[in-house]
C-alpha cells in the first residue's frame, strides 16, 4: 500500500529525515514510534506533500513524492494532523461534509453512520466544531478524514491530551477502520495504544528507522525501549 524508501527531508538547513525506510500493507495497522523531535510528524507531513521530499514514496504502486497534498489525498491517502485542525466556525455536520471529496460517489462511510458510531457527534451535529471537547474534536477529525473514503490514513498523535476512556474509544475506532480494509499508519509516543492495536511497529531515532518488529518483539526488546522510547 505505502512504501517509503530512503526518504530525506529538511527544514531549512536542518536535515530532519535521514533516509527513512518503511512500508504499510493493506488493512494493516502500523505504528511509528519514537521520542519527540525524532522526525515522526515530519515523516507523515513529507509523505503528505507538506514538506519537500527527497527519496521515493510509493502509494498503491504510484510514485507520490513531489505531488501536491490534494493530489495525494485524491489517490486515497488520508491524513489526520496532530493539531486536529477542526474548523471552529463550521458545524460538526459541515466539518464532515468538508471531508467528502465529491458529493457524487458513496464511499465506505457516510455521515449518518458516523453519527451512529459516535452518538456524541450526532447529538451535536449542528453545533460549531470549536465548542467540542478535545476527545470529540479528535473523533470528528478522524471521521472527517474517513468521509473522503481513503484506502489508508496516517494519524498523528491521536491520543495526545485525551482521557484514558477516550483513548479506548480512539483505539476501538482505529480497529474498526482497519476491519473495513483501510490501512493505518499510527504516529504515537504512547506505547500502550500502539502495542494494543498494531500489527507491526517501527521505532524512529535521529531521523531514521532504528527498529522494526511486532508488538510482542518490542515488548521483549528492553534495550530498544530504554534507548529510543522510554523517557
Amino acid at each position, binding site marked *: 500500500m505505502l512504501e517509503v524508501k530512503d526518504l530525506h527531508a529538511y527544514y531549512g538547513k536542518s536535515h530532519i529525515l535521514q533516509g527513512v525506510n518503511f512500508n504499510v500493507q493493506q488493512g494493516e495497522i502500523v505504528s511509528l514510534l519514537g521520542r519527540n523531535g525524532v522526525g515522526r510528524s515530519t515523516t507523515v507531513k513529507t509523505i503528505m506533500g507538506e514538506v519537500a521530499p527527497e527519496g521515493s514514496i510509493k502509494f498503491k504502486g504510484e510514485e507520490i513524492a513531489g505531488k501536491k497534498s*490534494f493530489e495525494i489525498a485524491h489517490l486515497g491517502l488520508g491524513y489526520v494532523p496532530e493539531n486536529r485542525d477542526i474548523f471552529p466556525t463550521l458545524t460538526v455536520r459541515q466539518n464532515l461534509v468538508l471531508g467528502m471529496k465529491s458529493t457524487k460517489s458513496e464511499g465506505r462511510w457516510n455521515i449518518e453512520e458516523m453519527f451512529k458510531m459516535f452518538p456524541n457527534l450526532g447529538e451535536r451535529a449542528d453545533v460549531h466544531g470549536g465548542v467540542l471537547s478535545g476527545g470529540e474534536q479528535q473523533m470528528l477529525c478522524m471521521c472527517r478524514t474517513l468521509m473522503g473514503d481513503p484506502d489508508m490514513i496516517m494519524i498523528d498523535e491521536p491520543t495526545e491530551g485525551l482521557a484514558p476512556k477516550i483513548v479506548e474509544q480512539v483505539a476501538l475506532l482505529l480497529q474498526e477502520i482497519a476491519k473495513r480494509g483501510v490501512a493505518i499508519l499510527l504516529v504515537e509516543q504512547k506505547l500502550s495504544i500502539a502495542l494494543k492495536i498494531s500489527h507491526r511497529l517501527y521505532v524512529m531515532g535521529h531521523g531514521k528507522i532504528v527498529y522494526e518488529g511486532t508488538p510482542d518483539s518490542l515488548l521483549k526488546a528492553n534495550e530498544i525501549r530504554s534507548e529510543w522510547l522510554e523517557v
Partner: protein
Amino acid sequence: MLEVFIFATLNGLVTGLLLFMLASGLTLIFSMMGVLNFAHASFYMLGAYFAYSISLQFGFWLGLIFAPLIVGCLGAAVERYGLRRVHESGHVAELVFTFGLAFLIEEAIQFFWGPDTKNYQSPDILDFPLFTLFGQEFSAYRGFMIGVSVLIFIGLFRVLTRSRIGIIIQAAITHPNTVANLGHNVPLIFMGVFGVGTALAGLAGVIAGPVLTTFPGMAIVLGSIVFVIVVIGGLGSLAGAFIASLLIGLLQSYAIASDVGMPDLLNFLGVSFERDHPLNDLWTMTLPQIAPILPFLLLVLVLIFRPTGLMGNREE
C-alpha cells in the same frame, strides 16, 4: 422633510449596496490571500467599459451578462499568472503588484477607449419612474440597481453559508493546508474566489456606469471609499463589509440631502462671527459640502475606538 428622508434613504441604499458589491469581493480576497488588492476598483472600471462597448453592439443586457464574466476571467488570470507567483515574495510584493496593476488598467483604458467620458446609457426599458412620491420620481433603473445588489447579496450569502463550495471556501480561508489534505485544490479555490470577486466588481461597474458616469477616473473615485469600508467593517468580514457599505451609503446620502451646516450650529449655540473673519469658510461650511469626507472621518473614529473594525477579529 419626510420626502427628503425617504429619497435620501433610497439613494443611500443604492450607493450602499453598490459599494457592498465591490467591498464583498475585496474582503473575500483579503480573507484568503491576506493582501488588499489595490486594483480591485480598476476591475469595477473595466466592467463599466466592457459593458459600454458590448452595449453599443448588442445592447445593455448582454453587457450586463458578459462584461462581469470577462472581468472575472481576467481577474482569475491575474491571480493565476501574476499574484500567485508574486505571493512567494511576500505581501509587500503583492501590494506593489496590485498597485502597479491599477495604473496599468487605467492607462490601458485610456489607450483603448480614450480619456473622455463615455455615453454609457441605462436601457430604454428601465427609463421610466418606478414611483412618484411627494411629486418626486424614483427611477426604475435605480430600483433595478437595488434589486441586482440584493440578489447578489442573497446569492453570495447562501453560497458561502449553505453550499458545499461555500463551506470549503470558509475552511480554506483559515486552514488552507488542512483543506488541501482533505483533497481540495486550494490554489484553484483561491483563483475562483479572486475571479468571482473581480466579476462582482465588474458587475458593480456595469450597473453603476450609466448612473455614476463612465470615465477613466471612476476607479479612483470609488476605490478609496471601498478600502475605507473594508477597514471599517473589519478586514476579512463579509458581514462587516455589508454593514459598513450601507452605513457609508446612507451617511453620505443623508449628508448630501440635508441643508444644515455650521451657521445653524453656531446660531443654536448663540455664537456669531463677522463675515470678514479669517476662518469664515469654516463657519459657513454646510453638511453637504463635507459629505465626501465623512467616510474618512468615520474611518478615523473606528481606528481610534475599534481598530479591528465593526465585525473584525484580526488582532495581528
